């Protein structure tokens, strides 16, 4: 018999014990969110900004039309000489006047060393945010590969203010994650960090040292 069969057989031979009913995750959730008043859009945006700041992520408010200009200013201020982006935003960035634009348009094998050594910053879309924890939802795809949000030292992320959900479970439900997950889905809350040396917090452990969220809010443009 194979290891698989042996393991499954031993599990099946065990006394069954009580079979609990399926946990009512959604029901408990509803009770909790109602109590927290998370139904309000403005409150969700406020909470997201507060929590993201707690994780040392910067939040910059801008609008759907103005973000390339805002990004240009941020790149100048941070001394970014090369900005990596996906095909999705190539057109919007083309006229932005940002120096050193690079498109992630080739398989990583063809330019791994360059990606790791020569890129200062990156720009990605997000699929939304989570207010409770100040979290970005990122679903990499063919246009915006996985490493775009990991390797460059500064990560800029575009977030639609209307896509901020109360908490993770609400996002999973509203965006129908089950059955639609990409090869890699990510939650990102702030820049990379570690407290492994004497419980002292240090940023930029292996991933980005800075995370800047460009919050696109039509109702509250600058």
């Amino acid at each position: 018999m194979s290891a698989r069969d042996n393991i499954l057989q031993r599990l099946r031979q065990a006394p069954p014990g009580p079979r609990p009913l399926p946990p009512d995750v959604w029901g408990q959730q509803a009770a909790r969110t109602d109590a927290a008043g998370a139904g309000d859009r403005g409150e969700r945006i406020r909470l997201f900004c507060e929590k993201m700041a707690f994780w040392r992520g910067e939040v910059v408010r801008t609008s759907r039309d103005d973000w390339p200009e805002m990004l240009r200013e941020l790149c100048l201020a941070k001394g970014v000489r090369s900005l990596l982006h996906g095909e999705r935003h190539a057109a919007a960035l083309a006229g932005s006047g940002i120096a050193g634009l690079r498109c992630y348009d080739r398989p990583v094998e063809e330019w791994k060393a360059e990606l790791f050594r020569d890129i200062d910053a990156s720009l990605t879309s997000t699929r939304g945010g989570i207010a409770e924890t100040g979290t970005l939802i990122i679903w990499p795809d063919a246009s915006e590969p996985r490493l775009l949000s990991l390797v460059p030292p500064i990560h800029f992320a575009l977030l639609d203010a209307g896509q901020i959900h109360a908490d993770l479970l609400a996002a999973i439900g509203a965006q129908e994650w089950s059955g639609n997950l990409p090869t890699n889905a990510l939650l990102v809350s702030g820049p990379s960090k570690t407290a492994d040396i004497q419980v002292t917090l240090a940023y930029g452990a292996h991933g980005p040292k800075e995370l800047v969220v460009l919050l696109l809010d039509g109702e509250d443009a600058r």
Partner: protein
Amino acid sequence: MNAQPLHFVPASEFRERAATAVADEHLRRSFRGAMDFLIGKRAAQFPDLAAFERQRALAEHIRKYSLARLPELLELLERRLTENGIRVHWAETPAEANGIIIDIARRHATKLMVKGKSMVSEEIELNHAMADAGMEALESDMGEYIVQLDGEKPSHIIMPAIHKTKEQIARLFAEKVPGARYTDSVDELIGIGRAVLREKFMAAEIGLSGVNFAVAETGTLCLVENEGNGRMCTTVPDVHIAITGIEKVVEKLEHVPPLFGLLTRSATGQAITTYFNLISGPRKPGEKDGPREVHLVLVDNGRTQAYADEQLRATLQCIRCGACMNHCPVYTRIGGHAYGTTYPGPIGEIISPHLLGLAATHVLPTASSLCGACGEVCPVRIPIPDLLVRLRGEAQHDARVGQRPLLGQGAARNLLIDAVWAGWAALYTRPLLYRAFGWLATRLRLLTPPRQSGWTQSRTPLRPARRTLHEEMAARTRR
């Protein structure tokens, strides 16, 4: 690096190591400080006790529900992962698990494997097996990297290098990392590690990771981390191997958020970690990065023994947050290395007997004052103190009728102790004998030996009173 095999010292030497650790002031201060810090951070996350109790009731329910359906869920997980293009392997023993991983590594002509944090890989001693096979396995979690560089083992499951001061790490880096100069700035030390490991992520043929939750219905592996090294290991190399115990599976994606929320809050007092990484398949055609092959190795290594017993099954509810060790007065005083096992602290005391057998571990369940703190903070409500008492019993007795003996059942039995208990039972069930013994013991009290086995190591000797309690009471009544 680290070719020198490190073998766990048998747990039977636990008492000596504990005594040494207790005498080490630096170690005591490191652990006390770190544990107080973690206890405070966790407490701040659960200000409302009633809400906390509701959350952990739900988390316990999810874990119990998943375990009750474990064989079905493992089969469903295997089916969905396979559909998603992830290859599933099963291993009953550490040797089998190592064999599977080494085969994959050889097929890809591996020189270097980068590792994200995985306690199961420590459990199977993967790094030694890789070294024996002529391949390097490099830890990339900052804490794990530090302990591996020093040829040590982690002393805490969440904070592996908690026993080291920054000065010790500064000296270690200056000595062992080529080109590194001495600095005791934590930011600079992390910068050195970052630079070294980024080169390794680029060079490695294989990345290995653990798994925090495996979702059966969607065929998804979830990884929790702050540093980003887990994402590097699972994204940059061409092959990703995930390894996990068979108990980590849940049925649905919506079962993850309640467990995830409690895991990070209980572990480090964070509402969420920097990264939560959900992997549902290898690189698809058209995608520009991500591994081309993803494997999952499901490891038993004694877990089915815990599963076979309705009470001990609760051990498998664990989500590896480490809160039990952070709150354990014994762990805080002796540190993680004294246990000599992969999993230290209360969770180690109840899981190690299944992984390694009671013959090697029977002393561990006694390393507890049964104060109950571990059970109170456990986010999935494992009744750790009850399981400690149960395992103490199993180490002393034969299996009950109808019960399958545990590995190493009755291993702590000792003829002298059996004889003492038999004598005690005889005395305490026969009043005449009891009185005669009491009379004799009080009259001959000066003959009691000054050294009384383990008792007098740190306590004054026991000596009977001048008169028995019965005699004193009788005298008082006469007055």
